[in-house]
């Protein structure tokens, strides 16, 4: 593990030690090697982007972090210790939250219920307390509702809190999904293409929310995104993947000037 000194960014955020480290990860589906021998780390408090062309293995990488796939080789280190093979729900309970490339909200529930569901990991009333709506069950409902309302305020979705999610437009659904992930108070938040399919204005809103979340709650964020402008503006460091390999890693400026990255992804000037 590389040792890092904590430092303060130009905009006043503190970037700490390593929160999560991927060590020599290889993932195969049958004969197909989706990810080959990739290592990188995510530091506390930073915004880390993973970029690459379609099929580069970015989503697979996110799925490994959230415990949905288990790599054939390599280790995932989390908070300074190797993480054993875990079920996704166990990973979530360790403080890894995420949103999805294709919106995966609970369509039959209201916005409020969706975000409340995000707080499940913080609710521990027993079956009987819940059945009788008694003691801890009632207190937890009220306490967690307060926490949820804070997030609803933060993301400016007060007006739609009672609306069934199925009726919302696309941009708002993305925001509700962010709210649901935030409700769990994750240490590490994974965003899988948070701005896919949005117009410029919606992208600006979402970028602002991502920066605010990172700034206000100190949440570490790892995101996948295709919009290069957004990635370069938001992130502290960028991992570039291509055909399952890592071809670049560093600050946006370093990555932008890296010849391999330019060749593979940003485009080669011909002529």
């Amino acid at each position, binding site marked *: 593990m590389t040792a890092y000194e904590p430092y303060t960014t130009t905009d006043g955020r503190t970037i700490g030690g390593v929160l999560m480290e991927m060590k020599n990860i290889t993932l195969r589906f049958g004969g197909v090697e989706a990810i080959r021998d990739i290592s990188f780390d995510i530091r506390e408090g930073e915004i880390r982007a993973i970029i690459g062309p379609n099929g580069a293995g970015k989503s697979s990488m996110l799925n490994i972090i*959230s415990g*949905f796939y288990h790599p054939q080789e390599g280790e995932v280190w989390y908070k300074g210790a190797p993480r054993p093979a875990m*079920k*996704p*729900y166990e990973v*979530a*309970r360790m403080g890894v*939250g*995420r949103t*999805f490339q294709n919106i*995966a*909200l*609970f*369509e*039959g*529930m209201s916005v409020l*219920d969706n975000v*409340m*569901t*995000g707080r*499940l*990991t913080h*609710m521990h*009333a027993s*079956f009987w307390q*819940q*059945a*009788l*709506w008694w003691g801890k*069950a*009632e207190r*937890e*409902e*009220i306490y967690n*509702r*307060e926490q949820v*309302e804070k997030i609803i305020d933060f993301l400016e979705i007060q007006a739609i809190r009672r609306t069934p999610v199925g009726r919302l437009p696309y941009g708002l659904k993305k925001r509700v999904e962010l709210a*649901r*992930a935030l409700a*769990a108070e994750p240490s590490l938040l994974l965003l899988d293409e948070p701005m896919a399919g949005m117009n410029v204005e919606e992208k600006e809103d979402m970028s602002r929310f991502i920066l605010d979340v990172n700034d206000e709650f100190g949440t570490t964020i790892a995101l996948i995104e295709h919009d290069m402008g957004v990635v370069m503006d938001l992130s502290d460091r960028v991992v570039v993947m291509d055909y399952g390999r890592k071809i670049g890693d560093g600050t946006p400026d370093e990555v932008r000037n890296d010849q391999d990255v330019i060749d593979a992804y940003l485009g080669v000037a011909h002529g």
Partner: protein
Amino acid sequence: MLYRTAGQFKTSYRADQALFPIRQDAFLLGVILLCAWVIFPLTASEFTFQTILTPILIYSLAALGLNILTGFAGQLSLGTGAFMGVGAYACYKLITLMPWLNPVVAILMSGVFSAGVGVLFGIPSLRIKGFYLAIATLAAQFFLVWLFEKWAWLYNFNSSGAIQVPNLDMFGLYVAGPQASSMTQYYLVLGITCLLTWICINLTRGTLGRTWKATRDMDIAAELIGIDLMRSKLTAFAVSSYVVGVAGALFVFMWRGAAEPNLFDIPLSFRVLFIAIIGGLGSVLGNYLGAILIVGLPVVLNTVPRAIGIEIDSALVEHLNIMIVGTLIIFFLVVEPHGLNQLWRLIREKLIIWPFPH
């Protein structure tokens, strides 16, 4: 205007999360409870108790149980009839093995057995979904009815192969068997139904309910935000089968008085499923509305034409009943998949803003 909510402000989350945040809802419930606990029993005849009041409650309870599994947790089940049977046979065995046992305790305990059996047959749901799971529960349906027939210990080696409810008394009052009065049985059923409904409402609006609904709506997302799908599905099977089992015990002990294995065959499962679908999947109130419709319809068809002087053949009533119920199911599946409950919600929304259109 009756349903106007203007001026009803909430100043705490406790008030906002109350069971009935709108005053009129609480009032309406009060009226219904008053009818159920006081007015109906005072006015009802023996016939009304036996053909309308008691069966509506029992069917509502069974549909509520099924609704928890299918409507809230999204696991399709076709084995409701058999799980009712497990409750009934368990209650029969408890009563005959321990005659000193309080009948109400026996009925509430019999649900534990059906919950156990339900969890056992719910294990396939961890691997399979939708229609395939429905087939697995169908297997439970056939297997259990077969078991009720073949395992003579279950019916105490009766030569008839049926279970007969003995006279049971509680504090000197007959509550089951040939000597029990319909009103006593009605009150018992009503009490248990109210209790279980209240518990189910609490469960479905709390953490567990959200876990179930998340599993129903998007299981992958549910797992990735920290829900143990196995736990979620199996608790749904357990709670659902418990309620269904208690309904089955009430069905035999408080209403039918006797039961043969084929009583719990697939027509009963479908009847309960129809009630849940017509009432509205994913609702509590809908089960009552659905049961009122399904149980009440044949009675209405039988009595109303005669009351207004049209002689109608009872076989024709039977056919009309099947035709109307069938049409209704198709109607609801096409027009209002969320059932009578949704219909009521739309009416209520309109009432709140009445007389204005918006």
